[in-house]
């Protein structure tokens, strides 16, 4: 056993935490706690980006870390929290699949993602290459969450978690995207959440519920 340098250990720990938080989100029944978990995931992402920036001496990563902190830890959770307060949906989540089954499915996804990432990370040269599998797993778990949840707001949260995973993949594979791309994505996500919030209000107005099953009965007249 040869111990890794401290920064690599820290990045590995944070990656593991990220994966754990993804599973916690998958298992969570209450929407209010789901938002808190999302904020926590953002915080872990922020710390890991800072650690990577220090380790790799990449200055543009500091900006994206600051962006992460502002957007994903403070602004987006705040918007979501306001949204669920206004819509009165703090508590209920209807899952299509039972939660233990979801967790086992998630486990299979993680195995799949790790297998998929192994040859890619063997080619990468960055210090954080081994965490690519975890980033991929986070993305896939967010997908799973979007699929298995019935309420629209949980799907929005799943979408944001997926973005977190993509961001982590970008930092771990290539030390982050170019600044222009990153700014664009951040703005996109912000606007996306705002638009989705308006959508949610409209869905509720139309059907008196946020259950997306009602959307299936829509017909062209």
């Amino acid at each position, binding site marked *: 056993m040869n111990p890794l340098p401290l920064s690599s*250990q820290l990045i590995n720990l944070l990656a593991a935490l990220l994966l754990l938080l993804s599973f916690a989100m998958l298992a969570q029944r209450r929407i209010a706690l789901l938002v808190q978990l999302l904020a926590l995931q953002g915080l872990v992402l922020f710390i890991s980006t800072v650690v990577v920036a220090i380790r790799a001496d990449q200055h543009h990563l500091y900006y994206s870390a600051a962006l992460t902190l502002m957007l994903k830890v403070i602004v987006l959770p705040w918007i979501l929290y306001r949204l669920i307060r206004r819509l009165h949906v703090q508590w209920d989540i209807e899952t299509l699949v039972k939660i233990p089954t979801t967790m086992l499915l998630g486990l299979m996804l993680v195995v799949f993602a790790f297998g998929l990432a192994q040859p890619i990370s063997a080619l990468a040269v960055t210090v954080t290459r081994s965490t690519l599998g*975890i980033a991929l797993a986070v993305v896939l778990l967010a997908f799973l969450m979007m699929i298995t949840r019935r309420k629209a707001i949980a799907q929005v949260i799943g979408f944001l978690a997926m973005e977190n995973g993509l961001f982590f993949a970008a930092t771990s594979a290539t030390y982050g995207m170019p600044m222009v791309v990153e700014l664009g994505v951040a703005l996109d996500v912000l606007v996306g959440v705002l638009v989705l919030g308006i959508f949610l209000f409209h869905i509720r107005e139309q059907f008196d519920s946020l259950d997306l099953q009602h959307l299936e009965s829509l017909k062209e007249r």
Partner: protein
Amino acid sequence: MNAIDVLTQVVEVLIAIAVAPLYLGWVNQCRAWLQNRNAPPLLQTYRLIRKLLHKDAVLATHASPIFRGVPYVLFGTMVLVAAIIPTISVDLPFGRVADAIALVGLFATARVAIALAAMDIGTAFGSLGARREMLIGFLAEPALLMVFFTTSLLVGSTALPATVAALVQHELAIYPSLAFAAVAFLMVLLAENARIPIDNPATHLELTMIHEAMVLEYSARHLALIEWASALKLFNYACIGFALFVPWGIAGGDAPVTALLPATVLLAAKLLVAGSGLALIETVSAKLRIFRAPEFLATAFLLAVLGMLIRLLLGS
């Protein structure tokens, strides 16, 4: 294997047998304090065992030899488990014979024995308890095995003394996989020892009881042995946890005999802290419905497997 190793082995088993009821008493005392109740005396478990040993055993008419033999099997298995786990030294003749997988097998033997005894009399409660115990057991066992596999991947051996020796020697490092395994192990410990999120041995409510339903028909010396064995089981689980996750202080392979004394003191300190921590967990958590138990244990299994995957992928 020399005389000192054998002596260490004997001392360790004796410590386990003698201290286990005290440890249970300490956990109960902490729990009572945290719940603002008057705490029972620290030696309450010993008093209970002494009282039970003085009584005459009553057996059901239809009791078969299985029913009479099981308390001894249970106690014997737990003593054997205590002999395998390195609590104060890794130089154990028994530890070399059986590894972690055999350990899980021994726990399974005890579980099967008590379930058989519970069904032997033919009362409704007995079979109910046995069924529930088997449900919990079959879910907890893979999680426990996965925890052992995670730690053995780190070291390259499933023998507990080898694991401890390797973990003690190398320098302090952050191991996410070990953290995952530790949480999973804690959940398995709670489920297997009939602690609160899964079972509450202090109640006699038929809707909730698991362990208690199985031993309702026992009395006197049989019950005393069963109580002692369950105290030993809790002690054993705590010691497995120490060996895998906080192994510092356990005397290493070629340590002198004098290293045993600080190891024992450190073990006592760890037991004190772990006991109060356990009481805290039991106080802050509510008992789950029995049908939520699979979810709880599925989470434990998931964490253990994640630990192993992270170990394989990140190598940490």
